[in-house]
């Protein structure tokens, strides 16, 4: 060894000159992790950014000149934690939620015209087909409506029995209607989730929504046949408009993914999927929020409102509001 015995080796001097800054950074990072970066005072926040960059530069040098394992491990861990503190998500929960509903969601809906049209088509087609088939042969009803949903409403039911189901809202909590409502909510949520996640393959998602349409069509046909179509329409409208729109939106989200996979354009399929994913995720979240609103309408509003015209007004008022929100909200603002 040629160096003078009292002189420290290069990597040790390097470490001694910088150690104090690293400890300072360690203390600030620890505080940022416990209390959040927002809780740091101005000086600490400023120091965090500076010390982080210094530490990263030190790490880069140390990898070249030092063989001190403990130093390298420490610096790497320190830089990793400081990196996560510096590049933490800077968004507040409130800001995120308000930005999503004010700008992100309606813009995503407007960008998904084709997918929305496809989803609506599946639903409408199912309803029409079931309705038409019922006209030619009422026994189709048993094919489309599983017995556990029917809850006694079969092709043999009389007019008064059917009407009874709709008007017995007071006993909703323990009557057959309550069970049906609970089933419908979980049923529609399941349909929405299924339609979204199966949408990546398009066809199963289309079939799922189509079969959902079949159920609605068959039920309608039965009531129309007994001359009480309007009553059912009003009963379903209160929450049904919101709920079916939610199912359509969720399905459209799935279709966006599927369409990106089938027609990736100039991108690779993976990149196209990632890109469509931005809108698809927004649509899924929007659909979930709409389902919550629908559940609220179903459990609180429908019980208190018995009048047909009022039910229609609430249901279709909500539908108009949703459509206005989709088409008008968040125009001319960037969603970045």
């Amino acid at each position, binding site marked *: 060894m040629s160096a003078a015995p009292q002189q420290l080796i290069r990597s040790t001097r390097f470490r001694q000159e910088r150690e104090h800054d*690293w400890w300072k950074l360690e203390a600030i990072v620890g505080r940022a992790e416990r209390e959040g970066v927002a809780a740091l005072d101005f000086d600490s926040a400023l120091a965090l950014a500076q010390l982080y960059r210094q530490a990263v530069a030190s790490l880069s040098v140390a990898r070249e000149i030092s063989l001190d394992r403990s130093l390298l491990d420490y610096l790497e861990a320190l830089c990793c934690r400081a990196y996560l503190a510096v590049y933490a998500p800077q968004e507040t929960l409130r800001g995120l939620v308000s930005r999503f509903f004010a700008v992100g969601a309606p813009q995503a809906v407007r960008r998904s015209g084709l997918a929305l049209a496809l989803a609506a088509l599946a639903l409408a087609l199912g309803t029409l087909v079931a309705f038409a088939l019922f006209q030619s042969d009422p026994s189709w009803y048993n094919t489309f409506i599983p017995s556990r949903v029917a809850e006694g409403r079969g092709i043999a039911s009389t007019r008064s029995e059917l009407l009874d189901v709709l008007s017995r809202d007071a006993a909703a909590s323990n009557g057959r209607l309550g069970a049906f409502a609970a089933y419908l909510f979980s049923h529609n949520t399941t349909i929405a989730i299924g339609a979204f996640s199966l949408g990546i393959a398009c066809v199963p998602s289309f079939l799922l929504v189509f079969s959902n349409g079949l159920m609605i069509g068959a039920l309608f046909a039965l009531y129309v046949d007994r001359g009480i179509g309007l009553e059912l329409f009003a009963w379903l409208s209160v929450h049904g408009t919101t709920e079916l729109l939610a199912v359509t939106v969720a399905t459209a989200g799935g279709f966006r993914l599927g369409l990106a996979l089938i027609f990736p354009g100039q991108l690779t399929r993976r990149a196209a999927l990632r890109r469509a994913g931005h809108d698809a995720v927004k649509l899924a979240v929007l659909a979930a929020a709409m389902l919550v609103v629908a559940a609220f309408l179903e459990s609180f509003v429908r019980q208190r409102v018995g009048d047909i015209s009022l039910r229609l007004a609430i249901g279709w008022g909500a539908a108009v509001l949703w459509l206005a929100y989709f088409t008008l909200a968040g125009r001319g603002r960037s969603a970045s």
Partner: protein
Amino acid sequence: MTAVLAAPPARRPLGTDRRRLAEILPPEGVALHFEIAGLGARFAAQLIDIVLTLGLALAVVLITLLLELGVGPSLVSIGALLFFFVRVPYYVAAELVWNGQTIGKRICALRVISGNGRSLSAHQIVARNLMKEMEIFLPGMYALVAADLGLVEGLLVVAWIATLIAVPVANKRRQRVGDIIAETIVVHQPPILLEGDLAATARATPVSQRFVFLPHQLEHYGRFELQVLEKLLHSAERLRNASDHDRTRANLAVVAERIRAKIGYGERVDPSEREAFLRAFYLAQRAHLEQRQLFGDVRADKFHGNQKSTDQR
């Protein structure tokens, strides 16, 4: 020399890191290495989260029931809303507010990071947790009612769960489907611990100047052996007052004798001076290797000489 540098490494050097690492390139341009979380730890974190949130929601429902605040349909809808919120919304909110951690991840020292070197975006958090619905909650629920399912449905659920487990197992970065879509990685929170610099403390002890090593005696070892010696000396330091110090001293004796024999150090080392000898050797070896490294001669381990001779042939 250049030929040696250009030649591909014939064999994996000793001491190559066997942990699974994710390399992240932050905007500062220096690659950082995160240790990828194991599936066991992630499963535990998920289990803690589920138990905590479900327990909380159940407690709230039970309290409302006992206090008779809500009855019938309103209770049902309160419950439905609560159980809705402890699914995806809880994870999204927690990971957003706590920078990629939920309560379970906090307990298990895990963290979600973005795989692209930028900060974790809201879209990434929402996307990875939306997929959780399909990957964890739905199959989990089906698994709970497995007994009631028919044979075909049961097999379908089994196939579904098997696929979902196979994806992260087969994946190099242990990403589940949601992680792949959102470009996120779950990593271990690295512990920060700085041990003293052996090269600095070795100077302080006067006895170290007693041992002088000649350049040819420092040609035998490489980085790996140096760092093993470093670990040994650190643990000897930590265990100085511990009960099993005798075993550490025996280890030091064995290592000191090995090194003395290998490098051909002529003088006998007194048993009481073995640690000082090792420290002095560590310092001299490190100074030598670091200097060689600055000149472009990186020695990964003790086989560096062999490799050179085979390459030059």
